[in-house]
């Protein structure tokens, strides 16, 4: 089995087994916090003219915590839609990770 198929199989297994109940799923806001919205991917951040706004913040947190917040433990996770940005493990670590400025 080629490496590509092994990877696809791994992703499929993860998606079929994993769910929101894996390790505690509720996002926790600090008492003083009042997040104006959820994750960047789920929030309409455009203005009336359709242009993306300048001011918006997710206030940190974690994408999975936001996705799972309020969902039952057996909720299926989102399918992996993009391999963009996935590290090329065949390259030396120093070449693929370093991002000096």
């Amino acid at each position, binding site marked *: 089995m080629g490496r590509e198929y092994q990877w696809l199989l791994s992703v499929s297994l993860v998606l079929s087994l994993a769910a929101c109940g*894996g*390790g*505690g799923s*509720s*996002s*926790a*806001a*600090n*008492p*003083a*916090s*009042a*997040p*104006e919205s959820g994750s*960047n*991917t789920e929030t309409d*951040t*455009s203005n009336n003219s359709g*242009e*993306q*706004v*300048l*001011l*918006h*913040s*997710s*206030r*940190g*947190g*974690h*994408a*999975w*915590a936001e996705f799972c917040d309020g969902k039952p433990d057996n909720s299926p996770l989102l399918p992996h839609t*993009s391999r*963009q*940005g996935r590290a090329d493990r065949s390259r030396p*670590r*120093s070449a693929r*990770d*370093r*991002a*000096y*400025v």
Partner: protein
Amino acid sequence: MFSGQTTEYANFTDPTSISGSGSLFTITADAYNNLWQTWTGYIAAPQLPARPANYDYLISQRYGSALPLERNPYPLPGEDPNQTNGGSGQLPVAFTQLREADGNWTGQIGVKLCSFCHDGQLSTASAGQQAPVFGGAGTIGDFTVAFRDFAAAGLSPTFGILGGPLTIAPNRGTGAIDQFQIGFLVFNGGNPEEFTNDKILFSQAIGNIKSPPWWNMGHRVQKFHGAVLPMDSSRIDMAAYYPLAINDDPVAWVDEASYPFQIWAESLKAPAYPGPVNQSLAEQGAILFHNKNLWAASLNNPVPQPDELGNGSCASCHGVYSPRYANDPSFLADPRMAGIAANLVSMDVIRTDSVYADAQQSLRNADGSPNVGIEYNPFLECGIGDFGDTPNNESVMLAPPLFGTWASAPYFHNASVPNLWGVLDPNNERPNIWLRQSTPAPEGMEGRVVMGFDTDINRAYDHEKMGWKYTELDCVSGFPATQPLLNCNPIDPSLPSLQDVLGAIYTEVALLWNLPIDELASIPLVDQQIEARKVYNTNIYSQGNQGHDFTVVLTDAERRAIIEYLKTL
């Protein structure tokens, strides 16, 4: 702390209990109720001293740990905790009363050490709110003082060692939070040869740092200020609870506990800025933050241009936040990368105090290979972070995400700059020696009790400069807290003091930093010394306030706009 047991504890008055698996860092509720008897300012007053009516509040202030909104009970004098649902006293968030497996209360109080450095408090006293903030807004705790009190009231030698004779945190709010050398020695995987490892013994002390906020954990790829570990190295989160006493498999306990903890910590959100925001000014700031090239030719930036500049803006290092830019492919390949900050920055560019970053590199061998100790250390199962992969052992720091920046003062990794204006203006608001404002003492207790840093955002927060209000101290007039000659030069602040000699020693033999050589004024023996721990002296080893000086090219108008924008993150 240092125990996986939440039910067992060692009692130093009963030697047979010490060889068991319980924690060595607990005290009885009786001792806790008598802590006030060790407060030198309180018991020296002319009034007949008695347990203060506002005892829980005073403890919260003295140790810098917030009182939680939920019950965190302990039994008051004369109370049976199992007849009073734990008791009617309220512990601060850094402490907890241990319970048996069947739910019975033990009346024994343990320490949640992480909380002292990582949890904070933001309050509006006028509104009667004093809410703890979990995982951030910290830099207020002083566990050294708490341990000093616990040692005295509970006759505990373990608390006593960490309550002054062995320096871990020399100041209120900061400390050697991730001191690598002690980590290698304590968590050596049963390999005593670590105690003769010359890369441990003759390496550089990391000195004093603050804890980065946990609400950024989901947006940074590596842990700690200096890219020390991959973010998914959850074991390290349990380091302060690693069971030192049990003979079972302590790593198994760590694995069971650390993953749920990290999931929780990653889910935390930064608190929203509570004041009004000038939307128009903030929008101007957002444009500057994401677009202004600090190295544009016309600006003649005195800091050498980085090799990989990006667009030269704040966002190049700290990440992209505005939806307008996060959805622009010329900024991010995928908008889901918004808020991710992953740039490893050379110290030649950032130029902040380099002790922490240099200390990390001192653990590497000359050929760049890591210290052999990583093979024994169970916390390094996922490998080390990118600090261990720099060419020629170059020192680096990881640029942090900026969520909740408004609640993260003082700034830089060592908390050396009290407000964000100083971060953006290297020629101003960089006080040499400074003192953060304290909470006013309750009426009638002025001068008798140690109060914590004031976290009232109406009273103690500078909303224009974004940070906590402070008073600058002079080396001479600030005596004894400033320790002239030892920690500052009374003739000219720019001239050396004995601290420079000590710094040279700490650079070569890390563990000497843990001796209280230069903390004569702040070893917590009496209340005056505890007050001195609030003074931040940038002349002390690792506490320099220099750097980030490429921002010198900003105008004041631009600084105001960027600060207004950061209030929205």
